């Protein structure tokens, strides 16, 4: 379980995350939903340990973010952190060296399913293809938590379905998947639970089916209603 307790993160004077508490259980697909600048990425970076909170605490299976949590969290960041001069096959080697839980066979199978040439350099791939490579690397680890920050932002709608299929088929049942996105209608059917974030605050955490039942609307519509400008 990921437990966030009264976490605040301030940049200069601005509260990017404002007294947030939430729990993320195992075995669920969770949508972290918010518009651009709502605090999604900051919250994720606090969970992955890339940022430390000014106040409050983050615990991953009882441990503070650090060496241990890095082995249980597989994180797809918004920005590509890989060396653009590397060939994909070299990146696979690098991942294998770096992450003990990396399943190389699986990664190759998935890359093939996306028709990605392993001999190409990252630099020579389109934005969408780069994102697919990142996604494949992230879900080819046998982790307890998969955190996917905007995994479908840069790919065309036709490829989104294939990416969702890949996510649905490839994580183990006890793991949790956290997907942050503003493209709600594309992913809402695969979510167990939704978390709405706005101006650094969690405004809602609820079971997706319960929410539909209560409000008789799609998650996408509910989100639009709640955050009307």
């Amino acid at each position: 379980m990921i437990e966030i307790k009264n976490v605040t993160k301030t940049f200069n004077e601005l509260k990017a995350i404002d007294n947030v508490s939430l729990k993320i259980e195992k075995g669920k697909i969770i949508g972290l939903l918010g518009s651009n600048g709502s605090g999604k990425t900051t919250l994720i970076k606090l969970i992955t340990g890339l940022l430390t909170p000014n106040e409050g605490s983050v615990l991953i299976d009882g441990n503070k973010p650090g060496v241990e949590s890095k082995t249980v969290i597989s994180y797809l960041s918004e920005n590509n952190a890989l060396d653009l001069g590397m060939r994909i096959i070299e990146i696979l080697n690098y991942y294998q060296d770096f992450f003990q839980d990396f399943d190389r066979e699986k990664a190759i199978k998935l890359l093939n399913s996306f028709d990605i040439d392993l001999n190409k350099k990252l630099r020579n791939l389109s934005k969408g293809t780069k994102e697919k490579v990142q996604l494949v690397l992230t879900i080819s680890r046998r982790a307890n938590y998969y955190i996917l920050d905007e995994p479908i932002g840069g790919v065309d709608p036709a490829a989104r379905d294939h990416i969702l299929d890949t996510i649905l088929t490839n994580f183990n049942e006890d793991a949790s998947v956290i997907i942050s996105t503003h493209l709600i209608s594309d992913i809402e059917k695969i979510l167990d639970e939704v978390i709405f974030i706005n101006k650094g605050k969690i405004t809602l955490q609820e079971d997706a089916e319960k929410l539909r039942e209560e409000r008789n609307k799609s998650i996408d519509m509910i989100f639009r209603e709640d955050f009307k400008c």
Partner: protein
Amino acid sequence: MKWEIDESKQIHPQLVEEITKRIINGFYKSGDKIPSVREFALEARVNPNTMQKALQELEDKKIIYTKRTVGKFVTEDPNIILKLQESMIDEITINFINTMKDLGLNETEITKKIKEKLL
């Protein structure tokens, strides 16, 4: 086969309905093995736990059953499937009649319309 899912309503009842329909129309026949939760979830592109809930409901209604370690199967009791078919036909017919009545048609007019369109 395509899954039409309306995201503004609860998803699991729609999954129950779709799978029931497939059993009634013989896409999955009595005694057939049906896809696993994961396979079904992928096919419908829905959350596996939501699909699990739908399959549990079908199992509670004895429409499907689980053979341990082998998988899930359509009931071998033809009466259950017949009853399902009847209740679905009734439901659709009643809905149709009510809609027609809401539009101001009387029974004679409704019957006339059906006959006209059946030709």
